[in-house]
């Protein structure tokens, strides 16, 4: 029974990684850059929910909506100020800028909210379910997380397949210059990608903090890096890949924690990343990209 409950916890954690990984994978597919600050957008979203619910007594659903709006705006602003001027710059410069933005958000939160750990009260009202004569308990948060993840995944795939903006995203990720010649608003599409990714980050943040209710300015960075691992695992640029990679990584982490060592679980996750990159650098569902001379 304990194995099944670990598995369920793993899938639930994996769903959170999958939602975060979506932000990475979409931005990477379109802007060809690793948005290091994505994890810290999550953290900002969590602080918005925390301060509005605990401090101001706002309705949880309103506060989640507010957090999504704040994160969306933040994502677009970051893109405009820090990344857009560097479209033509070498990848190293863009990466260093992204690290700078990530650091900026962390230390900004540190100054405003302080370094102390805030205990996040779960905003998801869902009771635990007991199965098999109380032996197997599925937490309500875990079920909600998995459902939300599946809904987001399906909605996003439909959006990209069926709408004009979604098709524009595909076109930009395929070839930026050709898309521009075909009349696609490239800058607008990149902004839209950042907006969607950051909005999803806010939702992922609420789910993450509901499942693991501690909040510090560094809350977002580790899940962010792990979600990037998940995106790479599944094949970067691929939405179903992010889903599969996220779930697998969540299961590996929880099982590693349960059966090997809780202190080594991060090391296990990173070892998975390294092995994947060596054996299959394009990930499970990724396409191989040939280098043009």
């Amino acid at each position, binding site marked *: 029974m304990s194995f099944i409950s670990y598995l369920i916890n793993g899938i639930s954690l994996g769903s959170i990684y999958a939602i975060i990984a979506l932000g990475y994978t979409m931005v990477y597919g379109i802007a060809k850059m690793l948005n290091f600050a994505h994890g810290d957008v999550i953290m900002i979203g969590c602080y918005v929910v925390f301060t509005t619910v605990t401090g101001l007594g706002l309705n949880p659903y309103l506060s989640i909506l507010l957090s999504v709006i704040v994160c969306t705006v933040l994502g677009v602003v970051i893109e405009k100020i820090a990344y857009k001027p560097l479209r033509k710059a070498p990848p190293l410069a863009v990466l260093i800028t992204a690290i700078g933005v990530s650091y900026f958000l962390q230390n900004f939160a540190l100054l405003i909210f302080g370094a102390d750990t805030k205990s996040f009260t779960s905003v998801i009202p869902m009771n635990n379910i007991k199965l098999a004569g109380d032996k197997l308990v599925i937490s309500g948060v875990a079920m909600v997380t998995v459902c939300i993840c599946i809904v987001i995944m399906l909605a996003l795939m439909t959006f990209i397949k069926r709408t004009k903006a979604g098709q524009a995203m595909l076109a930009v990720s395929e070839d930026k210059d050709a898309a521009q010649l075909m009349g696609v608003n490239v800058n607008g599409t990149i902004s839209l990608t950042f907006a969607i990714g950051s909005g999803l980050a806010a939702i992922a943040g609420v789910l993450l903090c509901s499942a693991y209710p501690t909040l510090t300015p560094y809350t977002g960075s580790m899940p962010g890096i792990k979600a990037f691992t998940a995106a790479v695992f599944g094949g970067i640029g691929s939405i179903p890949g992010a889903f599969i990679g996220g779930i697998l990584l969540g299961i590996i982490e929880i099982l590693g924690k349960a059966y090997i060592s809780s202190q080594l679980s991060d090391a296990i996750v990173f070892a998975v990343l390294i092995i994947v*990159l060596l054996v299959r650098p394009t990930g499970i569902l990724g396409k191989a990209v040939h280098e043009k001379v």
Partner: protein
Amino acid sequence: MKDKFNFLKNSSVKSMFVTYAIVIVAYLVMEALMFTGSVNYLLMDLLVPLCVYSIVAIGLCLCVGYLGELSLGHAGFMCIGAFTSATFSSLTKEFISNEIVAFLLAFVIGTIFAGLFGFLIGIPVLRLRGDYLAIVTLAFGEIIKNIINVLFIGKDSKGIHVAIVDPDALKMEADGKYIINGAKGISGTPHLSNFTIGVILILISLFIVYNLVHSRSGRAVMAIRDNRIAAESVGLNVTGYKLMAFSISAAIAGAGGVLYAHNLSTLTATPANFGYNMSIMILVFVVLGGMRSFRGSIIAAVLLTMLPEMLRGLSDYRMLIYSVVLIAMMLFNWSPKFKELRSKYAGVFKRNKKSKEAV
């Protein structure tokens, strides 16, 4: 006679000697100030860390500026250098009484281990490029830190015992004592580091990197950075040169770690000293120093460490300032708007630009 000093006309060689001179003069000035007693304790405590940061920054500068690969795992190499050398020193402190010999041996051990790990990690990692390489080096750094936090090494009358995760698995005799005690780290490392040794290590690191950069291999490394495909097509062994530069860079970071370990009585691997944050801090030094200038890296390391400590009120804002510096530097260097602005005022900065190219 005239020909003999011809090499001094080479601007990059001249710049190298200027760097040595700056380090030595700074050392002499500092020593003189300490001799007259006009240095406060705060600054005295900072001297060895300054040397540590400078050395690791030199190592990372080689990797980022000359090899062109962003490593976010140099704190991990520092960690390896620190822990291997501190373990060695704790094991042998009864046998070796001469401090200089003890430090020298610890230095050699720490540097070799860090270099070796750099080599081993480099084999898989250097096949990747750009963002992937950055994230994998970050992952390696975290793995190293995690493993050291669950590593137990003990010594008793029967010899040395090693265990992972579970300290009871050491099965030590009653007289046994811990060398590395998991997350509690190593305590009782002999205090062998001092400012003079730190400056000597800086000079050795500079000597190594300058010689490398000015050699045939160094030019090959830079050719690979500028155009990998072109370099490959003229027959350069891309992987070999990359591995060499990466291992040397890791070994230098390890040397910084050795110096760090022997300056503290208790050494632990926490996120603050060997985590991702340290790697970023060193990266800030390198970026602010001008990416391809060892001298710049040292100056940035010294200034950015000293300023927030001297201006007490600023220390809360230190990391915030670092992050803004990173973003601003990148925007200033690469944003089309700033480029335009700079070309407009090019006349004013012309001299400046010339000297930049020389570096």
